[in-house]
């Protein structure tokens, strides 16, 4: 055998061993690849789906939920209503920091049970300052604590949203009624929006969410509370699957103090209009120019 062919044979042998090692290294991907379907892979962006394509997609999600969680759910795609501009206000004088809004959000929006996720974080602040520097999130014990007040923070549905600007694939946008949404089937999970948001309003699905079947909320929206896939962003949508059908957000219904006011800015008789016209409201981090649709005010 000539030197050349011996070398070639050795190289082929080495390449075979290398390819085998490579296959072994990639073995964990087998289960993952089995969960991917061509239909999902090729699915277009929300805004490019025809009515029929959207119907098919909604049925597919329902079937997948049944297969994976054993629960029959109803996934709809409610669209923005004409002449509606949603806004939210929160009375800091009334809020007692009980976190029932955060819990209601957790249940309504089919959040991951393992991480106890919620779109709402309630900050405990010392009376005398609005600075978030000394805010405490993991407070415990009796509420309201003496000398403190509470500030729940969720997505402010900004009119100038930095999260939407930074998204490289237009997976997040502002709807006609002012709600900032995410197409969970288009998001690539780069988390640039999470870095851009000044209000810690966005969350990432670090793994597939786990929820006991009996706790799954079957009333679901494509852009809101359907069970999110792993590896994508999620955020508060003012419960659009409820509010676009004339109901109130879950966090508002859960509030025992009546601190929360939600409504249509274009309706002159709405509570939200009354608050904005009669209370001295403020927004968080106004200097950043994000123009939130979430207002805070004190009664006294």
């Amino acid at each position, binding site marked *: 055998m000539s030197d050349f062919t011996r*070398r070639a044979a050795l*190289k082929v042998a*080495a390449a075979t061993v*290398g390819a085998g*090692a*490579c296959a*072994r*290294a*990639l*073995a*964990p*991907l087998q289960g*993952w690849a089995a969960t991917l379907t061509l239909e999902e*892979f090729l699915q277009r*962006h929300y805004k490019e789906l025809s009515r029929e394509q959207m119907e098919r997609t909604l049925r597919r999600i329902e079937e997948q939920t049944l297969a994976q969680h054993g629960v029959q759910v109803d996934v709809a795609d409610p669209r923005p209503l004409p002449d509606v501009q949603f806004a939210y206000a929160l009375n800091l004088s009334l809020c007692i920091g009980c976190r029932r809004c955060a819990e209601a959000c957790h249940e309504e929006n089919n959040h991951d049970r393992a991480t106890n996720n919620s779109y709402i*974080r309630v*900050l405990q602040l010392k009376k005398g300052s609005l600075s*978030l*520097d*000394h*805010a405490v*999130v993991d407070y415990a014990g009796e509420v309201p604590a003496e000398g403190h007040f509470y500030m729940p923070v969720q997505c402010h549905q900004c009119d100038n949203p*930095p999260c939407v*600007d*930074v*998204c*490289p*694939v*237009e*997976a997040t946008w502002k709807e006609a009624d002012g709600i900032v949404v995410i197409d969970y089937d*288009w*998001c*690539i*999970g*780069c*988390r*640039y929006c*999470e*870095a*851009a*948001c*000044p*209000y*810690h309003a*966005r*969350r*990432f*699905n*670090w*793994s*597939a969410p786990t929820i006991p079947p009996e706790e799954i909320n079957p009333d679901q929206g494509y852009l809101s509370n359907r069970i999110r*896939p*792993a*590896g*994508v*962003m999620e955020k508060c949508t003012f419960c659009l699957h409820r509010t676009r059908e004339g109901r109130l957000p879950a966090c508002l219904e859960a509030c025992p103090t009546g601190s929360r006011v939600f409504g249509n800015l274009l309706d002159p008789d709405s509570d939200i209009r009354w608050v904005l016209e009669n209370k001295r409201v403020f927004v968080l*981090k106004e200097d*950043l*120019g*994000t123009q939130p649709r979430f207002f805070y005010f004190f009664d006294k």
Partner: protein
Amino acid sequence: MDHAPTPSTRIPTAEHITSYPRFILRALWLATEGGVGFYLWMFVLTALMLVGLNAFAHQTAEGLAVTAMTDHVSWGMYIGNFTYGVGLAAGGVMMVIPAYLYRDKDMHDVVIVGELLAIAAIVACLAFVNVDLGRLDRAWHMLPIVGRFNWPVSMLTWDVVVLAGYLLLNLHVVGYLLYMRYLGRSPSKSWYLPFVFLSIIWAISIHTVTAFLYCGLGGRPFWNSAVLAPRFLASAFVTGPAFIVLTLQVIRHVTRFPVAEGAIETLLKILRVTVILNLFLVACEVFTQFYTGGAHVTSATYLFFGLHGHDALVPWIWCAIACNLTATAILLTASFKKHTGWITAACGLALMGVWTEKGLGLIVPGFVPSTLHEIVEYLPNQVEWKVSIGIAALALIVFTLGLKLAIAVFTGEMQRHDEPT
């Protein structure tokens, strides 16, 4: 690099159809030829790459939850290494500028090392951003036309454009020059010089755009600084030359490729300026943060001194500063000027210092404290280390093979006229 063309080496254009694939085939064969040292080096790199690949496969199957990242610190080591890699890629231009703008003969002979470094570093950068994606299967959404490309508003789309462009530019220049050398022909200036000059501007752009990814975010005061892009460039021009000096020393030891002392001298001259410039810009940033105080200084306080008992990054950043200061001191000490050992140490320290300062030291404090002032700490875990080392090994494989081919062509070891028949 200029070779007088000899009539015997001229081939008709149509022959490129057969001669170019043969060039590629021979390059591939050559890539697997070498001594014991070469095989050992490649074996170790391949093993490390496979360890990284395996960790990445687990991460893909189980989700990014297997990393140490959280909703509070949502970017970590991957994005830090990405930033560092872009700097290395841009730093390669510090050979291109002397070689082509100042017509430095010694540098001209070895400039291909800088261009190959750019290619290898961009490969690593692309790998680092892709392993950081939650949905790698949807990466095609980022392609123009077939996906939805949020250009020009999203800085990330700019980054995709400039990184891909820089990779293509360097692949073209390197591929063209090597192929011409292989044929024994002198390269036609109009086929590569415009691309070389474009790549100089492009190198600046890749790192500027990478800085703009961070500094345009109003909600993150730590990054929201106009000096970030200049800082990135200054540190890139530290790491690029430092890495190339180390590479040239290795090449001198293990190959017959002639590396003129002048090229290393020029790189060291550049380094002596850029290490100081980098430290100066860091000092400007630190002064502005601490003298101003208030909300803008909390992240910097966390980084340098710790905040409310949280101090995971404190040893890292002081170690980085010590590395940078020591490297600067060595480079500026006249008696060490000709001493290879000290020069090697200085380059290694500078690479370490910038990696820490620009990786974890820049990315993580942007998230600590969070936008609602919660303090959640981050240090990379085993999965992130494995994947990162795997990607570094992949980049070194690309770099090694590129250098091997370039050196074989330049030393005449691989020429068209001695093709096996």
